[in-house]
């Protein structure tokens, strides 16, 4: 919101805001008197707001205001009550509604399933409806509830809603309500008459009239409402209230802060402002970096937004480096942007920046040779050797592991390396002090040749089925402990020799949940030591038999590592995993990397961080030690409320790291959110994307720490029961499941159900222990986007891409609900599901479309039919594929699934809204939730 109405801050109770705040009470109590219900008047909310243009992973749905327009033809009859003050809604030409009164809980309209697309320009003007309910920028301290502190000390409170105390202000408002309601009704009548007189009024009115709640029991197609990010508005007295943090980087589960809430953060940024400044302006007291949400009382001072204490502004802060002139301090890039990066002076270094160090630990035991992963490994490494981040000092080492350790010593720039074998793995030593870890630049040619030879070196000669990765890790750690760096492990078999040897713990027919914790603390201790020496360990697993990922992943868990699993990798039989590995490995090698990082999150006074979830080591209560940072990981932090909050709260995360170019940098993200005392307001600003990710991380942490899996499952269900239940209570209407139209609460049940069916939490039999552990690790460290699409895959209908008029960049097909209800007999669908993408072809699909895109009829299509062909439809389809798969390195190649093919199960399994033998369908789950709530 670029220009919120000027709020006379902290004085009195301005009329406009009182009214606005009041309307939320009004708008929900309307259902007590159904037919004359009125939509709220939102005088104070400006129409145009900047959306998050910089979002690197835009959800396809976000480009459309709710995607409602497709249903327009269905609702052309005039509704019973004339739309009262409809002119406020002129911005919403095609809002869906449910016959005017949600109270009557009408039977679901037979919704047209095929979206009818129309030119996008027509719909680009209206703002997303969620903005209608954005926070009033008024004096929010009036509404900030003083919650009893002990209530929020509870650990891991997934949903802050249940114990929400009604603030006294709100009760007052409810008491005033009847009188105001009459006034409103009079107005409604007047406006209604006015509207009736106008030409074309009924049609217009039908669209303008909409209810603000949805009945989940009645409304099946919940996906149609989209899943766009929620916008918030900030008070104007801040230095730059229009600065917004990219929600892909830093987001909160609640866009309005009531009390306890959690944050999700990603260490990834695309458009960055790098600032080189003589002095970095920080708060004298709490060391906060200056940011857009500080307050400038005058040009000489600034007031910190976290500790609210005053600071002097240095003289040179009025100098604007972009225009090279003195002026308003607000023009500084620190104030203009919510995300900035400073190049740190030497005070921020404990030692000179380290060079980039990469060590590759490759498994060459017999099963590794059989899987043939070395071929893809060597191909991709050669291609990307020059693209690996680092400066001239970059160093590299290779160690092969079977029953002994094979070191490769690079002595000359001409001859290839000499191999040294250490077979005393219980008491291993580094065979030579130099020449194992060598500068990449000097030895580039030799290293290149060596990498090229790797597959042939190990394809001949004696191999063993031993693996001593534990001892290798210890040695490698001692080799690079002085410098720090990154160790990449490529593991095919279970380590069975030396320190850290593991046993098969997989029990046949287990229900799941056992043995998810580590078998030994060897890897954890090692990983803690590594973190202390700034060494990060990443794990690539290619196992086809049990390899105890739950224990092995401990090395990555506490050293900021990543775990990528390619089950049943086989070069001959499984081209899919090979391609996926190549894609992931390329991204892994070339992505940006930062070394020896620490991350500190500061919060406004009154909030405190109470827990962290992700791969890192918690060094202190607000400080995380990260040996390496990369753009493809995320972490979550839980925030507890300790005292009464001011009108807005801020979170600042500062990441101090050494870039691969060898300079020290500080990346600062600041997020500012308004607070509210209104429960319904809170529900409208409930961010499901962050919540789902957070809930899954909590569940994973609990299960991997040895808790029963059923506890995690129960906690997930309780989270949704609590938040929905509290909402039903607030609405005080039983019999149906109401959710607000804005906000994300409506999608909560379907996401939780999907989470319960996710391999990480599923109670299905026959799930391998390693598969579950891999799914859990993915949830633990992966960024939001990946987690969301893995939990609730996105299903697109491709048939509409055949229409020449249909689609361009801004109106791609919308995601459908994941049920066979939406799979039609002539349909061709694309499913983007976590690390896999599928194209599903029904047997009766349009032959012309198949011919154009797949180059043959249904029978002729085979797994390699999907190549871009020289016609418009194929180009459009591929443009759409590109749009979906862009930036998602974790997505494997697109797999074709025919309706009658054997691999159909892959597709069917991901339709999580349908019931299976042991799980609920979406409707059954809703009924289950309803029973739980009513109890």
């Amino acid at each position, binding site marked *: 919101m670029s220009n919120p109405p000027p709020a006379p801050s902290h004085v009195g109770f301005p009329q406009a805001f009182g009214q606005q705040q009041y309307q939320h009470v009004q708008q929900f109590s309307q259902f007590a008197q159904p037919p004359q219900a009125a939509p709220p008047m939102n005088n104070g909310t400006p129409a145009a707001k900047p959306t998050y243009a910089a979002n690197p992973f835009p959800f396809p749905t976000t480009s459309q205001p709710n995607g409602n327009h497709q249903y327009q033809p269905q609702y052309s009859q005039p509704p019973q009550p004339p739309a009262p003050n409809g002119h406020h809604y002129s911005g919403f030409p095609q809002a869906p509604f449910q016959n005017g009164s949600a109270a009557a809980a009408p039977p679901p309209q037979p919704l047209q399933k095929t979206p009818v697309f129309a030119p996008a320009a027509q719909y680009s003007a209206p703002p997303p409806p969620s903005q209608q309910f954005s926070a009033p920028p008024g004096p929010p301290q009036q509404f900030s509830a003083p919650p009893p502190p002990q209530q929020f*000390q*509870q*650990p*891991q409170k997934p949903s802050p809603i249940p114990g929400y105390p009604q603030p006294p202000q709100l009760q007052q408002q409810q008491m005033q309500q009847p009188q105001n309601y009459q006034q409103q009704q009079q107005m409604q009548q007047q406006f209604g008459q006015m509207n009736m007189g106008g030409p074309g009024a009924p049609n217009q009115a039908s669209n303008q009239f909409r209810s603000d709640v949805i009945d989940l029991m009645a409304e099946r197609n919940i996906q149609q409402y989209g899943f766009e990010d929620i916008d918030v508005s900030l008070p104007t007295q801040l230095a730059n209230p229009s600065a917004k943090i990219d929600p892909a980087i830093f987001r909160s589960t609640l866009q309005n802060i009531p009390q306890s809430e959690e944050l999700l953060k990603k260490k990834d940024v695309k458009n960055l402002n790098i600032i080189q400044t003589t002095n970095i302006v920080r708060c004298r007291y709490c060391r906060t970096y200056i940011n857009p949400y500080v307050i400038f009382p005058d040009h000489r001072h600034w007031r910190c937004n976290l500790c609210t204490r005053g600071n002097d502004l240095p003289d040179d802060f009025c100098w604007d480096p972009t225009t090279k002139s003195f002026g308003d301090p607000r023009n500084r890039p620190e104030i203009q942007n919510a995300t900035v990066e400073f190049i740190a002076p030497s005070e921020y270094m404990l030692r000179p920046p380290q060079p980039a160090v990469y060590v590759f630990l490759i498994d060459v035991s017999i099963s590794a040779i059989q899987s043939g992963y070395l071929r893809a490994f060597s191909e991709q490494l050669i291609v990307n050797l020059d693209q690996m981040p680092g400066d001239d000092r970059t160093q590299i080492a290779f160690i092969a592991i079977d029953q002994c350790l094979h070191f490769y010593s690079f002595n000359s720039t001409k001859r290839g390396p000499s191999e040294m074998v250490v077979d005393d793995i219980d008491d291993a030593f580094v065979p030579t002090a130099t020449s194992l870890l060598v500068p990449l630049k000097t030895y580039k040619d030799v290293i290149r040749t060596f990498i090229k030879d790797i597959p042939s070196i190990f394809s001949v000669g004696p191999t063993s089925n031993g693996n001593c990765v534990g001892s290798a890790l210890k040695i490698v750690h001692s080799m690079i402990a002085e410098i720090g760096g990154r160790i990449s492990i490529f593991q095919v078999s279970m380590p069975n020799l030396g320190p850290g040897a593991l046993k098969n713990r997989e029990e046949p027919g287990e229900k799941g949940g056992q043995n998810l*914790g*580590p*078998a*030994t*603390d*060897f890897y*954890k*201790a090692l990983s*803690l030591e590594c973190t*202390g020496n700034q060494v990060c360990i990443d794990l690539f697993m290619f196992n086809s038999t049990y390899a105890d990922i739950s224990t092995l992943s401990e090395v990555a868990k*506490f050293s900021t590592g990543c775990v990528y699993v390619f089950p049943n990798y086989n070069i001959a039989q499984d081209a899919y995993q090979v391609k996926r590995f190549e894609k992931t490995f390329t991204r892994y090698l070339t992505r940006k990397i930062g070394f020896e990082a620490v991350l500190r999150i500061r919060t406004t006074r009154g909030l*405190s*961080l*109470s*827990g*962290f979830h992700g791969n890192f*080591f*918690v*060094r*202190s*209560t607000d*400080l995380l030690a990260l040996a390496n940072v990369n753009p493809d990981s995320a972490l979550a932090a*839980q925030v*507890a409320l300790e005292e009464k909050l001011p009108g807005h709260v801020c979170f600042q995360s500062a990441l101090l790291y050494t870039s691969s170019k060898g300079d020290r940098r500080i990346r600062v993200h600041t997020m500012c959110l308004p607070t509210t005392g209104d429960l319904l307001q809170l529900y409208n600003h409930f961010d499901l994307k962050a919540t789902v990710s957070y809930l899954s991380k909590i569940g994973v942490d609990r299960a991997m*720490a*040895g808790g029963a899996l059923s506890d995690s499952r129960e906690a997930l269900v309780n989270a949704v029961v609590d938040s929905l239940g509290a909402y039903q209570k607030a609405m005080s209407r039983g019999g149906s499941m109401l959710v607000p139209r804005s906000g994300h609460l409506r999608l909560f049940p379907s996401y939780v159900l999907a989470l319960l069916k996710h391999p990480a939490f599923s109670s299905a039999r026959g799930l391998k222990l390693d598969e579950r552990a891999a799914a859990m690790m993915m949830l633990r460290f992966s960024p939001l986007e990946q987690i969301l699409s893995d939990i609730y895959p996105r299903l697109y209908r491709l048939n509409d891409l055949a229409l020449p008029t249909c689609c361009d960049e801004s109106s791609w097909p919308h995601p459908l609900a994941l049920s066979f209800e939406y799979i039609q007999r002539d349909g061709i669908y694309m499913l983007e599901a976590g690390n896999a993408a599928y194209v599903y072809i029904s047997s009766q699909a349009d032959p012309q479309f198949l011919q154009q895109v797949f180059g043959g009829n249904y029978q002729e299509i085979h797994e390699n039919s999907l190549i871009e062909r020289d016609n418009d439809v194929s180009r459009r389809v591929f443009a759409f594929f590109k749009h979906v798969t862009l930036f998602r390195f974790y997505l494997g190649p697109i797999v074709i699934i025919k309706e009658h093919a054997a691999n159909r199960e892959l597709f069917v399994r991901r339709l999580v809204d349908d019931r299976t033998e042991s799980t609920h369908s979406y409707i059954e789950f809703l009924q289950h939730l309803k029973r739980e709530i009513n109890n």
Partner: protein
Amino acid sequence: MAFTFAALCYLLALIAVGFCIFFAIYTVICIDELKTDYKNPIEQCRNLNQLILPEYIVHGVYTFLFILSWQLISILANLPLVFYHIYTYINRPVMSGPGIYDPTTILNRSTLSSTLRVSWIKLAFYLISFFYYLYAMIYTLVTST
């Protein structure tokens, strides 16, 4: 007045509980340092873990002595703590060395506060025990014939 076995038990317990008080104070200080100062949790946990088994053993031994001399009140007061110790040690996180504190989870707000609370309660318990054993020792010395 005679120096009975019960009096000897109380005397030993008095000395032992002195050690326990020291352990408890040390734990409280260490946890508090974790909370407020930037101490390294790995080292802090290592220090604390070294003291876990000695404390449990010392406490177990004098409880056993009370059972031998059949001091009913002291037995009833100490048995719950013995069971609590056994319970925590069985359910400790996976680790190769002795101890119960895990440096990766200790800084979670909930773990930290519960650990701190437990060590305060233990400190209070040991202090009360100390004075009770002093009183009980003198009482047995005086009353025994």
